[in-house]
């Protein structure tokens, strides 16, 4: 309808709908007026009152017919019918509360599972950044000679990018992650901050909640501006939301800084999984004692994440072309650091948590949405089956309705309204279940004190999704039964008395149950693979022994300790801990296996020829104290451990793993050889030991090249003390804490946890556990739905065939043959479902492959054991109603009607 029309017609429609009596009254009055005028007219022409009145009426024709025709013009009959259907639908559903409850619950489970998973996908892939024009924000990344994709640039690279991309980006901003201690009124607590470029907040166009943000003049890498902006949640917890905090001086790592502002509540920084606690100018990092003075000019010290805002109207492809030119310029101008560099730009939304050309998050999202969608389909099939049964039972009602003049379309509409009402109730239940599921999903523990942000909150997208899923579900489950119920010849139905059942209907229902069995088998196979993969990962040899180890994270820099004081602190603390009863040994290290801090750098290995077509060699590394290998039970194969004699001013040394020894010095011993870390022009590291490979970065794949350097030579303030105990490690927490306080009274301890627990990180076992748990839940749901389906269809068959069974038994059929007859149908369904399920699972294998370790996605053991279990359970579900069939008393069955 033309929009201008509304102006005139909408009030009329509303009046017709909601002031129906009024409108009716007006109609009568109008016609009455006409009749009266007519009567007057005839009176004037000489007729008697009676004659005049009669003539007027005769001339008018049928008054009621005319009224009805007037009503027909009101165009609201659809709506009135809908209201009537809704009322009737609700009444029908209330009349059979058992059916309604089961159907709504089934749909709620299906919709809930989908909603919960969608809320997760929403948070990772759909929710825009809370900044102005978030679609303009992009993430920059690079590769060197087709090596791994990295998104940490050096400061000189960032500055070059800022200067050279003004034709495509309005702002190029950078942030550098940092941890430290924030001292307020003498008390120090850890704080996680971003050191940001001065244009950070202006580029993002975020407005402060309180005070002001960092200015472009404050972010330069050389001039010191001691200011800090607090994250909203940190301000709420640490400062109790006190607005007078703006202007206050606090200490960051022992250096005075002024609080200048607070971020708005919804802004958490650009890393999608963290809720950043503070923001400081990039230069402030220099106050850190461990700060490398060459950072502002060293092109190879790469630690700044770079984001850029596209100029209005510039496409991401245009930006990519501009970056291609810049990358080749970079490579030409700085061959030493940027040879073979390619730059890439990704939309921020598809780069969470990190830019990833493999689209891992998208794959995970797809996998889980498919699985959840399947659960919903299974739920739909069940409800459609229930409705089919009801449709059969309601054939008489439908026949009578159509005999009374209900058109087929009208009956279909009524039945669909009922199923949609059902689905909407399911949708409401689903949203509640989804909320519960989503909060269970977001309560996942990442085993870190990092301010993790897992925000699966429901927003309009999630509610919109749930609503559309519910409506769609209503249409799907309602259509087939509605078409069937309304399509039959009414005379036939009334004559039959609703007793008979045609074969076609039963075939349809059986086919639906085959799909259910197949779908649930696929869910179970995927779950089985995930569970097997988790248990493989849990039992796999990590190369170190995680049992009986306690981890304790510290950062002496947070209370202003410099390198010398920090080293002394760690040495004294480790000695104290070693002397505790129940302690075998202790050590300190920057990286905990599978933890969130990993160092990785390019290497220069004299004498090693980089094979053609491969990238510059690189390796992960860790700074460790003497005794590290003893504590973690990593066998030393050759050479020596670090000692307290390895100091900053002695020869820098390294202990390498087998993989590294094999790659760079395949012939003979690696001991005594030297190599360099690309960012460090001064020191050459001499190999003094070789240790066995141990996993520390990823559960998947082979162990890569890795080396260890002495803590004293490459000091990091932030470190984790690891203690090998002979008692259960939890029992030593108190005494170890006491030793920390005894060594340095104000030292904050950021986290304490056993190593076994610390394995459950995103890099470690967490994702396996998560995948196994989630697919397990979906599989279980699917199984329950399939069992209900099988049970339902067999029970229905039995009840429909009661009379037939009675006759058969009266004619002398034994219980065994009746049982066989009923079971045959069940067995056919189950085995057809089995075939469907195995095919579906094989189809999913390529998607599943990326998420399992240690087993093939075609693992025959999983396929066979899960299928066997499903067959047994499903056959049992057939057996129960089949058994009931054999108990039929022929006399009762024959009378049964």
């Amino acid at each position, binding site marked *: 309808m033309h929009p201008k029309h509304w102006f005139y*017609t909408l009030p009329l429609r509303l009046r017709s709908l909601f002031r129906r009596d009024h409108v009716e009254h007006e109609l009568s009055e*109008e016609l009455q*007026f*006409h009749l009266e005028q*007519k009567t007057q007219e005839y009176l004037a022409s000489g007729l008697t009152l009676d004659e005049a009145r009669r003539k007027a009426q005769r*001339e008018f*024709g*049928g008054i009621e*017919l005319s009224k009805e025709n007037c009503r*027909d013009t009101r165009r609201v009959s659809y709506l009135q019918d809908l209201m009537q259907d809704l009322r009737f639908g609700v009444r029908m559903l209330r009349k059979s509360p058992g059916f309604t409850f089961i159907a709504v619950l089934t749909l709620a489970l299906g919709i809930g599972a989908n909603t919960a998973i969608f809320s997760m996908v929403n948070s990772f892939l759909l929710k825009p950044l809370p900044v102005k024009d978030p679609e303009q924000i992009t993430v920059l990344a690079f590769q060197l000679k087709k090596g791994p994709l990295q998104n940490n640039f050096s400061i000189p690279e960032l500055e070059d990018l800022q200067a050279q991309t003004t034709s495509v980006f309005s702002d190029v901003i950078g942030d550098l992650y940092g941890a430290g201690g924030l001292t307020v009124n003498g008390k120090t607590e850890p704080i996680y901050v971003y050191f940001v470029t001065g244009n950070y907040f202006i580029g993002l166009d975020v407005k402060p909640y309180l005070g002001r943000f960092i200015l472009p003049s404050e972010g330069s890498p050389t001039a010191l501006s001691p200011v800090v902006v607090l994250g909203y949640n940190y301000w709420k917890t640490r400062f109790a939301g006190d607005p007078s905090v703006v202007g206050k001086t606090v200490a960051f790592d022992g250096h005075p800084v002024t609080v200048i502002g607070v971020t708005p509540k919804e802004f958490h920084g650009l890393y999608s999984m963290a809720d950043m606690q503070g923001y400081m100018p990039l230069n402030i990092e220099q106050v850190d004692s461990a700060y490398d003075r060459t950072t502002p000019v060293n092109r190879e010290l790469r630690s700044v994440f770079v984001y850029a805002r596209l100029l209005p109207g510039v496409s991401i492809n245009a930006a990519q072309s501009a970056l291609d030119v810049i990358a080749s310029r970079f490579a030409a101008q700085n061959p030493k650091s940027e040879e073979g560099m390619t730059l890439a730009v990704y939309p921020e939304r598809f780069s969470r948590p990190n830019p990833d050309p493999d689209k891992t998050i998208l794959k995970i999202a797809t996998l889980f949405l498919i699985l959840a969608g399947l659960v919903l389909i299974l739920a739909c099939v069940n409800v459609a089956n229930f409705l089919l049964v009801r449709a059969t039972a309601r054939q008489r009602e439908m026949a009578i309705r159509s005999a009374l003049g209900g058109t087929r379309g009208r009956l279909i509409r009524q039945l669909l309204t009922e199923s949609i009402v059902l689905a909407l109730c399911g949708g409401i239940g689903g949203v509640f279940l989804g909320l519960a599921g989503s909060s269970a999903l977001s309560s996942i523990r990442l085993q870190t004190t990092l301010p993790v942000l897992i925000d699966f909150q429901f927003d309009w997208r999630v509610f919109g999704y749930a609503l559309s899923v519910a409506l769609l579900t209503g249409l799907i489950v309602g259509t087939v039964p509605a078409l069937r119920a309304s399509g039959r010849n009414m005379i036939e139905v009334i004559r039959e008395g609703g007793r008979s059942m045609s074969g076609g209907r039963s075939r349809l229902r059986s086919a639906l149950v085959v799909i259910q069995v197949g779908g649930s088998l696929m869910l179970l196979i995927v779950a089985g693979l995930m569970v097997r993969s988790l248990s493989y990962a849990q039992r796999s040899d990590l190369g170190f022994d995680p049992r009986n180890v306690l981890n304790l994270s510290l950062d002496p820099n947070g209370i202003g300790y410099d390198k010398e004081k920090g080293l002394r602190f760690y040495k004294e603390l480790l000695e104290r801990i070693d002397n505790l009863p129940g302690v075998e040994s202790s050590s300190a290290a920057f990286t905990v296996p599978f933890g969130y801090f990993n160092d990785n750098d390019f290497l220069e290995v004299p004498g090693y020829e980089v094979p053609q077509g491969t990238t510059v060699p690189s390796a992960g590394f860790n700074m460790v104290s003497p005794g590290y290998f003893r504590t973690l039970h990593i066998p030393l194969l050759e050479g020596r451990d670090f000692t307290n004699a390895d100091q900053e001013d002695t020869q820098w040394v390294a202990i390498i793993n087998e993989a590294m020894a094999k790659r760079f010095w395949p012939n003979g011993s690696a001991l005594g050889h030297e190599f360099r870390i690309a960012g460090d022009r001064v020191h050459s590291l001499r190999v003094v030991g070789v240790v066995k490979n141990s996993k520390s970065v990823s559960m998947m794949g082979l162990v890569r090249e890795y080396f260890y350097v002495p803590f004293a030579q490459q000091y990091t303030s932030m470190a984790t003390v690891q203690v090998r105990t002979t008692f259960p490690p939890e029992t030593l927490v108190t005494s170890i804490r006491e030793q920390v306080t005894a060594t340095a009274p104000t030292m904050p301890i950021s986290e304490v946890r056993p190593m076994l627990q610390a394995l459950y990180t995103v890099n470690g076992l967490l994702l396996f556990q998560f995948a196994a748990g989630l697919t397990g839940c979906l599989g279980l749901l699917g199984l329950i739905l399939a069992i209900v389906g099988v049970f339902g269809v067999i029970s229905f068959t039995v009840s429909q065939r009661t009379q037939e069974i009675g006759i058969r038994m009266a004619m002398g059929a034994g219980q065994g043959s009746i049982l066989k007859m009923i079971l045959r149908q069940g067995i056919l369904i189950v085995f057809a479902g089995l075939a469907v399920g195995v095919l579906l699972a094989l189809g999913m294998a390529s998607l599943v492959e990326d998420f399992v370790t240690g087993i093939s996605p075609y693992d025959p053991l999983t396929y066979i054991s899960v299928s066997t279990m499903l067959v047994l359970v499903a056959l049992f579900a057939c057996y129960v109603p089949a058994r009931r069939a054999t108990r039929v008393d022929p006399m009762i069955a024959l009378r049964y009607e």
Partner: protein
Amino acid sequence: MSRPSDLVQGTLDLLLLKILALEPMNGYAVSLRLKQVSGEVLQVSDGSLYPALHKLEQEGWITAEWKPTENNRRAKFYSLTRLGKKQLEKESANWSRLSDAISNIVKLKEA
């Protein structure tokens, strides 16, 4: 809806719009005017007049208002809306085209 069979579909709408374009009037007055202007040629029963008027109202072409008549009876008076004026122009043009075409055909002489 019952319509006078000898009225071309849509023609009644055109007549009513035209009559109401002259001045706002109530249903009874419309029926008188119809008879008056068309003589007895166009027979529109009173019973089908009202549904036709209500249809025009629901389309938004005419709007109704309850007003007192000359002898102070409350009656529903219809008048043309802006949309109705446009519709009238359109239908008049259509009608002219159609009637021209038909009269041209009717006037054709056998060769």
